[in-house]
């Protein structure tokens, strides 16, 4: 009898307790894309793209609200929807260019990390323009904004054409002194009325916009970061080959079969030195000029190596000019030259800009493709 009574109590305690934070899917608004930017009056605005579950497919509710802080304005965020806004399903988190002009904007996102309910695996995207534009455009013949943005970032980052930075990654990159953040960059092509992934946005250590790089440069960045998967494609103009008047015929492209990147650091003359050794084994995918690879592979290999080395050096010079280190050379410095790194810890960007960096690239062609 005692056990029965105890059991009943236990059962009732369980049933009546339940979980207070239960919320059914249809009672919640589950925005798939969120964005923050400054508007024309320099007021911070929060942008939301919310799927509307109705009879129609692909219906999205998009609105924006002025905010002071994200959590403080939660009730205003809710106000536009029938359900309670839940930040659990964000696929992309977009940041407008105007916000990126200011330092320390990342601190606004504190709630995303502090409230464990929020997702941190959403892709962070920098939008090259005012967010207002992005969240008002109705893309008729395209999937909804969150779907297309996420798809863009995921597929392009696989090919190395941009970086894949989740909000969690961004958190790490901001708080890591030894490198600077990089985000996928999306532009609105007004002429073709569609969004376009345009490469990678590089930020300073404080999160301020530094510069943007294109696809090829992004691939190189990924190769340097050792993030590039096999199969990324590079294309170079080979000097000395004849060119046509309207289109270039001097291009050679290859996909990377295998890559071995080694970065060595040293310190001398009050400067950091980095030596980058890159061994690329390449499969030719395009070659517009005539060259018998079977006979003269070494010539092409040499030329490709030169070009790649040149572009790498140019890219690194660009980083140095903007005092940014998206590759994370600082991590090598911290690992191998800790004493010197420690001195420059708080202004690593500056120290990096003075560093001497040498590249040695060796391309080996191991496949010429199926035609001669």
């Amino acid at each position: 009898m005692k056990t029965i009574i105890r059991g009943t109590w236990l059962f009732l305690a369980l049933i009546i307790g339940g979980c207070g934070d239960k919320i059914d899917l249809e009672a919640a608004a589950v925005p798939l894309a969120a964005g923050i930017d400054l508007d024309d009056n320099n007021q911070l605005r929060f942008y939301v793209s919310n799927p509307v579950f109705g009879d129609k497919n692909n219906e999205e509710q998009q609105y924006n609200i002025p905010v002071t802080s994200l959590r403080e304005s939660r009730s205003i965020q809710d106000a536009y929807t029938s359900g309670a806004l839940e930040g659990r399903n964000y696929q992309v988190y977009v940041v407008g260019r105007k916000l990126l002009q200011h330092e320390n904007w990342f601190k606004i996102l504190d709630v995303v990390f502090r409230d464990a309910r929020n997702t941190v695996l959403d892709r962070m995207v920098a939008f090259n323009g005012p967010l207002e534009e992005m969240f008002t455009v109705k893309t008729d013949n395209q999937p909804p904004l969150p779907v297309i943005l996420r798809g863009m970032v995921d597929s392009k980052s696989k090919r190395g054409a941009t970086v894949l930075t989740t909000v969690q990654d961004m958190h790490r990159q901001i708080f890591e002194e030894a490198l600077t953040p990089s985000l996928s960059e999306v532009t609105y092509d007004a002429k073709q009325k569609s969004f376009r992934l345009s490469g990678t946005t590089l930020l300073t250590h404080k999160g301020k916009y530094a510069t943007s790089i294109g696809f090829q440069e992004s691939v190189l960045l990924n190769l340097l970061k050792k993030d590039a998967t096999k199969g990324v494609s590079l294309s170079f103009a080979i000097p000395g080959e004849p060119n046509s008047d309207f289109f270039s015929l001097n291009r050679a492209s290859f996909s990377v079969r295998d890559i071995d990147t080694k970065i060595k650091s040293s310190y001398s003359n009050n400067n950091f030195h980095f030596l980058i050794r890159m061994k690329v084994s390449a499969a030719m995918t395009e070659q517009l000029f005539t060259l018998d690879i079977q006979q003269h592979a070494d010539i092409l290999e040499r030329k490709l190596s030169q070009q790649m080395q040149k572009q790498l050096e140019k890219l690194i010079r660009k980083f140095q000019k903007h005092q940014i280190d998206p590759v994370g050379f600082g991590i090598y410095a911290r690992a191998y030259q800790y004493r010197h790194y420690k001195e420059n810890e708080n202004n690593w960007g500056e120290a990096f800009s003075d560093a001497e960096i040498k590249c040695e690239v060796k391309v080996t062609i191991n496949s010429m493709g199926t035609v001669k």
Partner: protein
Amino acid sequence: MDNKTLTRGFRKYRDVATRVEPARTDPLEVDLRQNFEKLKEIFSNTPDLINRRFILKADNRQALLAYLEGLSDKSSINRDILTPLKQGTAEINGINDFPATIGEFHQLTDWGQVEHMLFAGYSILFIDGEKVAYACGSQGWPQRAIEDPQLETSLKGAHQGFVETGGANVALIRRYIPNRELKIKQFTIGARSQTKLSILYLSDVANIQTLNVLEERLSKLDVDAVINTGELAELIEDSPFSPFPQFILTERPDAASSQILQGKFVIVVDRSPSALVGPVNFISFFQSVDDYSTRWTIATFIRMLRLLAFFIAILLPAIYISVVSFHFEVIPMKLLSTIGQSRAKVPFPPYMEAVFMELTLEMLREAGVRLPAPVGQTVGIVGGIVIGQAIVQAGLISNIMVVVVAFTAIASFILPNYDMGAAVRLVRFAMMLFASLFGFVGIVVGLMTLIAHLLSLKSLGVPYSTPFGPVRFRDWKDTMVRIPIWLMKNRPTSSNAQQDTRQGDTGHPREDERH
């Protein structure tokens, strides 16, 4: 609590309840007429008792043959008892030289025996001037022909199922194991039903301690009647409050025999077309006879399919509930809009939706089982409306829920054992309750409780969850994978067999030729 009141209540009940009278011990009379009177007195209002009076040809004495119509084989009585006694001239010289041409023959001395034998279908011969009666084995009652097993159909196994006669069932098993070590222990259970039980086992293989446990439980039984094997299972199982079956009830002689060969015990209950197998473990409910006659790779695949189905059948509706009402962040983006759209039109919360649909499914199943075949078709048609597009269009249930229910149904149909399937159906609802209260946390707690329960269960004192807990790696050969039969040289450790190795030393079948 107040134990005294309770006991008193029970005692009172026990006193009032009519008990079956103890067996008679009064001896038979010498005078046939007195015996006849006594017979009529004992069997009053028994119109199916036939009393045939005749005169023995050999010595002109009066005789009386009594038998219960319907329990006896009439032609056998005419041919083998009445004819030789009425026409033959051989004298009756006690039981060893009796003129009747019948196999089984007993000498009875008191009325208790007479009563017992009559009900067992024997015909009783009283002879004037003898203080004993003779019971002739002329039993014969309505019997069903041996048919294909109904519940446990198999593709490649034998097509003979058990019938309602215990003796025939024992014979069916004996056909598989013609070995003198196959022992049969008989018990009679049920004060009124006098049901005969036979425990079958291999005396040089099966574990004696387990046998003792079984015998002890059977001998302690004091019930009115045991009609079916299922009742017996419930009376002797280890944990009566568990939803999980602790014995296998099989209607296949081949399955029962293979269990005996593994060192298990099989109880054949007279009048019941299924035999009880014990001790069993959890995984044996996922084994089927066909597993051993299909190729081992395929059998292994099917085993894993069943285990997967077990978890799907238990968890899928619960996972649906917790995902939709707690953790929609785990839904992939594209699925989210699909689920969202189908959920948007439904006025009920997910757990209600799920409980409603699962209950409907259970009702359909139950209706399908009990309905006679001609009406049964209607269930299918009506069921298609309830679990189908119509209910979605009516806006009562979401598309996804229908798919979930269909999945669960298919998954629970795969389980080869009906009792395990029934347990799964029940556990599913508990899981749904947990999920609707606590989401994934609830499911995990539910699963932990379930596993703890399975680990604590025993079947005839043998742990239910072997070989997984306690871990017996050697026995894993016939669990999730079914290794080739020529590699299964040992009996499962779970049956604690005296003989660990099976007879014979067959290695790879083509081993000799390979060299």
